[in-house]
């Protein structure tokens, strides 16, 4: 090992003890969480300082069957093949792959067989791509999990042990490890295949736990798939495959499907209030829908242009969305009245946001794609009124994908084009200063966007390659 790597290891090893919060930085669904904040609050290895110190490294790339959607990430699963840190990625070829993201090896891969009387669409278009279009989802909690409690003995009445189950036993509560608690039972992966069936897959094997259930019409353009409270939600848009546009929910307890059809209006996306209310945006309205039944509770008609995002400012929730005129709004989640209106002056705003909260000052930050650059706003309060104050803007990038935030570091993907490869950038969340870029590590352009989890950032490209950047624990 060279001195350089020794120094890096020492830096990262010291950082490993510094900060680790809720749940260990998993990524549950498109947009990261039920509120679609596209953020990982804390991370043991990624921070502004460590990225400046060189922590971001190209880790691995894997060729998949089909074009990948943004992966979801789970950690410390106790599988029948040992402790694994797995991500799950769906592809346009109706496959779901599980990758051990600490070693970059496929753990399992499963093909979801087409099961519909409708003729499958083999060749798609930019508006209506063929195959599986929605990213897979894990079971997303409505509220972020609390930081792990101290762990004690494993005797009667005691909580499960903190250390491994092998024979490592339990630890003194004063010596809580920096690792998240291992998950002892297999979780589930929710995948909406191109035939319109919802699959509930065993995280450890990729096998259907229950028979796949009919959810939406086949060949639809489905996205924003997310499982919340044993109900899987998805939206459809652009009437692809002659499927009606709408918001859809299937209760996995009885496979009952409810929908909120939106006619000609394409659905842009959805997010959840912490009480379970579904906030959905279409090209014509923003609606608050009852959980599971999708009965409208409130509606705000306008020409919306983005997926909604739900944030908290001083413990009160707000909905963030933008319209086709480039305005960015904060809305009261119950009345849907405007709390903040940032004029857009005709700017083009990207179709989704990201948000993070500064740990020390509790300042809430909102990130948007505006005219091809990442623009960062602070939520400020003046005279009892909220406002957004622009803090910084990045340079313009080619086909900039919606940014994400990991522990105060903003990751932005220049998706590239047929003539320019994608480039991933890391920016200081406070200043926008460029901290790192992937340079020429990515070959080809991306159509999928990015996701993160467990000190890594994942980028999928049009040729079916999934790239991982970030930090790996030294194995040697």
């Amino acid at each position, binding site marked *: 090992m060279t001195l350089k790597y020794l120094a890096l290891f020492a830096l990262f*090893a010291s950082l*490993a*003890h510094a900060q680790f919060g809720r749940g260990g930085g998993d990524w549950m669904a498109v947009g990261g969480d039920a509120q679609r904040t596209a953020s990982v609050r804390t991370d043991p290895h990624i921070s502004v300082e460590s990225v400046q110190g060189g922590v971001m490294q190209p880790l691995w790339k894997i060729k998949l069957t089909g074009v990948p959607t943004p992966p979801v990430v789970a950690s*410390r*699963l*106790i*599988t*029948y*093949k*040992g*402790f694994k*840190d797995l991500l799950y990625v769906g592809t346009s070829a109706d496959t779901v792959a599980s990758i051990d993201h*600490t*070693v970059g090896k496929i753990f399992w891969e499963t093909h979801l067989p087409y099961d519909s009387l409708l003729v499958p669409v083999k060749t798609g278009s930019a508006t209506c791509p063929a195959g599986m279009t929605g990213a897979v989802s894990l079971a997303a909690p409505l509220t972020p999990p609390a930081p792990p409690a101290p762990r004690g*003995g*494993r*005797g*009667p009445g*005691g909580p499960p*042990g903190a*250390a*491994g*189950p*092998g*024979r*490592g*036993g*339990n*630890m*003194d509560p*004063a*010596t809580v*490890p*920096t*690792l998240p608690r*291992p*998950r*002892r*039972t*297999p979780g589930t992966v929710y995948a909406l295949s191109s035939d319109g069936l919802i699959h509930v897959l*065993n995280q*450890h*094997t990729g*096998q259907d736990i229950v028979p796949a259930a009919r959810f939406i019409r086949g060949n639809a353009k489905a996205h924003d798939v997310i499982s919340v409270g044993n109900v899987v939600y998805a939206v459809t848009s652009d009437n692809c495959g002659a499927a009606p546009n709408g918001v859809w929910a299937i209760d996995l307890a009885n496979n009952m499907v409810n929908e909120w059809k939106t006619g000609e209006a394409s659905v842009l996306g959805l997010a959840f209030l912490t009480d379970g209310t579904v906030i959905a945006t279409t090209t014509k309205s923003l609606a608050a829908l009852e959980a599971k039944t999708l009965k409208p509770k409130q509606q705000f008609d306008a020409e919306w242009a983005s997926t909604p995002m739900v944030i908290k400012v001083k413990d009160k929730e707000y909905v963030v969305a933008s319209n086709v005129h480039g305005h960015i709004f904060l809305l009261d989640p119950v009345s849907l009245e405007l709390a903040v209106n940032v004029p857009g002056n005709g700017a083009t705003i990207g179709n989704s946001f990201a948000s993070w909260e500064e740990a020390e000052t509790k300042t809430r930050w909102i990130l948007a794609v505006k005219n091809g650059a990442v623009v960062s706003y602070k939520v400020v309060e003046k005279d009892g009124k909220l406002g957004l104050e622009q803090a910084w803007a990045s340079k313009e990038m080619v086909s900039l994908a919606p940014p994400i935030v990991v522990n105060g570091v903003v990751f932005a993907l220049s998706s590239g084009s047929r003539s320019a490869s994608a480039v991933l950038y890391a920016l200081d969340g406070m200043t926008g200063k460029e901290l790192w870029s992937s340079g020429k590590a990515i070959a080809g352009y991306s159509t999928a966007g990015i996701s993160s989890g467990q000190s890594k950032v994942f980028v999928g490209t049009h040729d079916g390659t999934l790239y991982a950047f970030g930090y790996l*624990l*030294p*194995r*040697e």
Partner: protein
Amino acid sequence: MRTSRFVIAMALGCAFGADWPTDGGNPQRTAWQKDEKILNKDNVKNLKIVWKIQLDNKPIEMHSLFPPLIVDKVNTASGPKQIAIVAGVSDNIYAIDVATAKIIWQKHFEYPTPARRGRPTDPLCPAGLTATPVIGPPNANGSRTVYAMAGDGEVHSLSVADGEDVAPPFQFGYPYGKSYALNLWEGVLFTTTAQGCAGNPNQMWSVKINDPSHKVMTYNPKSGGLWGRTGAAIDESGVAWAPTGDGRYDPATQTYGNGLIGAKVVGNELKLQDYYEPKNWAWLQSRDLDMQVTPAIFKYKGKELMIAASKECRIYLLDTKAAGGDDHQTPLDRTPLICNEEVNFASAGIWGAMASWEDAQGTRWILSPFWGPSHPDFKVPVSYGPVTHGAVVAFKLEEKNGKYKLIPAWMSRDMDQAEPPVIANGVVYAFGSGENTEQAYPDRGLDDNSPERIHDSTHAVFYALDAETGKELYSSGDQIKSFVHFGGLSIANGRVYLGTFDSILYCFGLEGK
């Protein structure tokens, strides 16, 4: 004729008289019987079960009989006898006349049921006696005492000859706390605890046998359990070395997870003397690959060295005077991965204890069992077919200009969950436990439960191997009817012993010897 027979018997008695007074054969846990004179490479092909005895010990979870301790020439009321002392998990101690396979005496420890116990069906935490006892040196009268810790943590001091208490019992361990094999060094008893059974602290324990107050001295490395199968190994300075389970390494807070600690009794305290931490401890922690193998300690070219290992499936060579060097993280040598390509926390990796011996030419040999398939990148000059379930692997230790190297020598035939071997007179004795070691399942994830594992276990197979080549010289085939969990081999005076889950003690030897 009578005289000559007596003389021959006396001569043999003096020549033999080998003991196996502690788990792993000696306090250094080398598992090497230096005094074996009967069994050798040429005759072990004729091994047979010379006797087996069904004991009335009730298995608890997967545990049953612990490795027997052997003492020769014990003066009993009916004359001198070679005695095997066997502990059973249901708080039983049996003394068996090796010559006749008859029980000379037996003890059952009674105590009020402790307030806490491990979860029923949990293989990790049986509610009973779990520490292999230890036999002390002869006293002035030549009498021997066996020290046995009952499930309530009390140590009983029993006469090997008749099982009578030679001293009042005293409290040492944690009730139902799963103590590991006792070790004894200059009047100090050592044990370790793991798995947090019944709420125990995971730590090293010691007590002076002759201290009237029997003050219990402990050292807690703030790690996961210290679960080397044969407890702590003790070096020439009296430092007890034990591996630590999953946890962090943070010397600033004296936190030593996934490492190896050495502690010594100083005055009336058990104090940390030294430690070793693999540089990739965080990786080991993240995958539950903890260091959990009792090391073996030996002299080599004037230095005292130690070998340790982990579920990751590497062997580390360390200097007992400076384990891991100045930074505590630099071993004298470290092997490549021998097995566990899958990075599994169960059914793969090195488990149990290490072993070591020296041949007549002065070559130092290192032996390790492992579970699961051998690593595809591990190259060994001599092997005996593909290894899929486990094997014993042997290394030679070499030193040139102060640089030490573990050189792969041979890998045995496939064994169904190879357990720690023992060595005697150029023969390695090993066994595949036949135990089902799965802890997690595709449909359920982690579900480590005794009933299922017992159901899915098969039977142990005992082997004798040429210690220089690994060639199989004997196999018990399907003669052993049950599996082994936390049992082990003992060898002395031409007999090799193994206890199984069904509480049968098998004695292998040569007919007429």
